[in-house]
């Protein structure tokens, strides 16, 4: 990773997944950077929504909170959390970004506790809007560091639904049909979910990374896409826009 870092790569990969004219629910940090980069490259009409009520703002700078005033700066509408969440529940929002302390093979996420719920080792914030976004939006994108403590066989707490226990499980639980985790983007690889088993599989490996290296950082067994490619490097123009326009103060890409 000579002329770019892992975070920059992850953001570029995520940005490319957001097609022009799509609608995406984002949080602060890398997801917001990815959406902003997409707007500045191939997706000028990408509509960004924030759970607290910001609808399609012209972001003047990286928001610090998903509810700060930047999230409704020159927005098409400054609205309510219910309006945004119901726009998702209605089926209007294509993508949402998620993260978490733990993720399992079906893309289920834990952001509530590590250890026993009644006597947690660590208490995390909880769902926030993540469970809602993951339940309502058509495709969820997960950006996270890749290590064995995160990519686990068994979540300590299932905060936010991925494919739950596998094919058909979301629908059986009552969740809206035909949506769920789409891609997992880490510092090592890009993963998708097998259309039959709904288990995580590697689509592309970042330059210099082997399947075995990724598996070694993953507690559960990873599948292989029919063809595993090498992740496309950040292009010079992507890096320029990311560093000069999207995150000039390196809040995100400086990490």
């Amino acid at each position, binding site marked *: 990773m000579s002329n770019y870092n892992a975070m920059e790569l992850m953001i570029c990969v995520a940005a490319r997944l957001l097609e022009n004219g799509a609608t995406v629910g984002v*949080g*602060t*940090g890398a997801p917001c950077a990815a959406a902003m980069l997409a707007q500045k490259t191939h997706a000028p009409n990408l509509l960004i929504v924030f*759970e*607290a*009520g*910001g609808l399609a703002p012209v972001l*003047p*700078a990286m928001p*610090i*909170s*998903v*509810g*700060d*005033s930047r*999230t*409704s700066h020159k927005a098409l509408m*400054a*609205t*309510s*959390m*219910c309006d945004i*969440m119901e726009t998702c*529940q209605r089926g209007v929002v294509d993508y949402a970004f998620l993260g978490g302390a733990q993720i399992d093979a079906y893309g*289920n996420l834990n952001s*509530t506790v590590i250890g026993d*719920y*009644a*006597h*947690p*080792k*660590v*208490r*995390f*914030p*909880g*769902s*926030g*809007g*993540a*469970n*809602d976004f*993951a*339940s*309502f939006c058509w495709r969820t994108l997960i950006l996270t560091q890749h290590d064995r403590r995160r990519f686990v066989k068994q979540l300590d*707490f*299932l*905060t*936010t*639904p991925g494919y*739950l226990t596998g094919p058909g*499980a*979301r629908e059986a*639980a*009552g*969740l*809206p049909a035909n949506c769920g985790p789409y891609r997992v983007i880490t510092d090592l690889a890009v993963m998708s979910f097998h259309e039959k088993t709904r288990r995580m599989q590697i689509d592309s490996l970042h330059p210099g990374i082997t399947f075995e290296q990724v598996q070694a950082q993953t507690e559960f067994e990873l599948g292989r896409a029919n063809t595993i490619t090498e992740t496309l490097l950040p292009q010079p123009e992507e890096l320029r826009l990311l560093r000069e326009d999207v995150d000039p103060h390196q*809040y995100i890409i400086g990490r």
Partner: protein
Amino acid sequence: MSDLLAGQGPLFANPDPDAARAFFRQKKGALNNKLMPVSEAVAQFIHNGDYLASGGFGTNRIATAALHEIVRQKKADLGFAGHTTTHDFQILAAGNRHGHRLLSRIDAAYIVGLEARGLSTQARRLMESGDVDVCEWTNYALACRFRAAASGIPFLPLRSMLGTDTLKHSAAKEILCPFTGRKLTAVPALYPDVSLIHVHESDCHGNARIKGITVADYDLARASKRLIITAERIVSTDEIRSNPNATLIPAFCVDAVCHVPFGSYPGNMPGEYFSDEQHLKAWLNAERDSDTYEKFLTTYIYNVPNFETYLDRCGGTARLAELQKLEHL
């Protein structure tokens, strides 16, 4: 219906609409003059054992002055609605120390974290201590609980939480749609005993305006049995009547109106001033060492006669001017 799950979390507030109707019926004097100091509003309208909710969004448009006053007045045994609550929850967590129990019941959707800024050591300590009963929700689920109450109905159906431990540890229940047979999550109405909402403008009766996102405050104002408004500016009722489209909260929801310029500090106030990230960082850092934390709270809450003094200790007018400038970049 044996396959329908009922969450095992505790239900902290009565969702019955007729009980709430009886309360709202006797709440009169919508057009009284409700102007009073924050200290008086907190003393008069927040009682030990109450269920409390705060408006805004964690570090955005929060009623900081009222939150500090609650800690100063050592209120006890409060329930709290933890929809994205960050700095507000961090302030209240200071009340659960040295054997005092300011908070006893938490409906948790997003707590202990300050978003990108990191986790609050003291909020975590409280949540991990077992000192409070906890019920899990999502942000939207809590917003729906406020809306159900605001609407005067005992529950609302939604389509999240399903299939997760979040539902198992909530007080929600799975139901079947009477029209489609689909499984849905039913969440019970939440009528807070008292709520705090910081607004841009209010008249002396509590007819209030908010600029920018409203988060869940339209519903929260209507759901709350008692409501304390803190406002950047007090305007005349003629001004309110000059633009009926701008009103978000009508007077009959409101019990107290407090004039608190920069009232959301160190949080962001849309169109007015940006958040003070230095002070928020200092707070997070101070929490890591108990002596430092004790001194910090003494300086910024306990030995503070009023909110103006707090602002002065945080840099006063010079710092506030910087934050105003930052907001208008």
